[in-house]
């Protein structure tokens, strides 16, 4: 029991900036959710948030694989999300058009593609982006093999040369 608690405290000591960031995030979240700033809420936060921070350290802090984000990458990520929102809006109108038009102009099918994304985070983001954007759904992403279902032939082949993929590659490489 004693050894376990000392392990947790060691982890907190090893990653003090991360713990402080998690502490402030949780504190801000708690104050926003409670919506009041009197001393009872503050006291409750100061009791509970450090406890949660300890548990989160046990879950999250990994000394070997830490994600480092540069300023260049941040700008690219913001650009990525702006384009993603635009694509989501277009996607919804396309689906609405296909569903509501009497003839239903669909030509569905599966397409296998090759992607070279290595980090888990960017793979998840890219897969979800494909699902949210016009006429395509990610069916499977295994290794570098991406299986996509497209609603029309045009959209399915559009994934092959997609500009969001280039931005995502830049985000992965950029330092």
């Amino acid at each position, binding site marked *: 029991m004693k050894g376990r608690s000392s392990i947790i405290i060691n982890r907190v000591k090893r990653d003090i900036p991360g713990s402080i960031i998690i502490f402030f995030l949780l504190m801000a979240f708690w104050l926003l*959710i409670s919506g009041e700033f009197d001393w009872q809420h503050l006291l409750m936060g100061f009791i509970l948030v450090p406890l949660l921070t300890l548990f989160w350290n046990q879950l999250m802090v990994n000394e070997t694989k830490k994600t480092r984000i540069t300023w260049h990458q941040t700008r690219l990520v913001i650009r990525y999300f702006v384009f993603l929102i635009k694509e*989501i809006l277009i996607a919804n109108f396309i689906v609405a058009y296909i569903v509501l038009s009497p003839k239903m102009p669909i030509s569905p099918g599966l*397409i296998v593609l090759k992607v070279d994304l290595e980090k888990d985070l960017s793979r998840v983001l890219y897969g*979800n982006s494909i*699902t949210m954007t016009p006429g395509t759904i*990610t069916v499977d992403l295994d290794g570098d093999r991406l299986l996509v279902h497209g609603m029309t032939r045009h959209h399915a082949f559009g994934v092959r040369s997609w500009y969001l993929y280039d931005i995502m590659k830049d985000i992965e490489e950029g330092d």
Partner: protein
Amino acid sequence: MIRRRCGFRQDCLAELDMEGIREIIAIILMSGGFFFLTVGVVGLIRLPDVYNRLHALGKCDTMGVGLIILGLVLIVPGTTNVVKLLLMGALTVVINPVITHIITKTAYVRGTSLAEGSFVVSTYYEEEEGDFFKGEEGE
């Protein structure tokens, strides 16, 4: 509130204070949300197979719920409720594609057949073989 008793158009514009404009924007956003949710359900009924139905549901539900939440954020009182609504919106946007992906993958692994006339194409070995456009029609 928008008051009904104004006579001329000019008076109407004068009576539209910030609250009224906010409510009108909220109503427009929420109507858009209802439209997209309806489109999702219509697509669920009309489209031929599991994969195509998920296209309609996965996209239109995210958009519909997102728009309704945006509309509610404008008219709900208090920071607490706004934060909770935004949290719900963020969770929806994250969870919806993941669930869509899980259902699609399960259907694929179980061997659910595609709709009639679907194509299956592989562009994986594009570089080696040069011609990517080789695949069989139908399933």
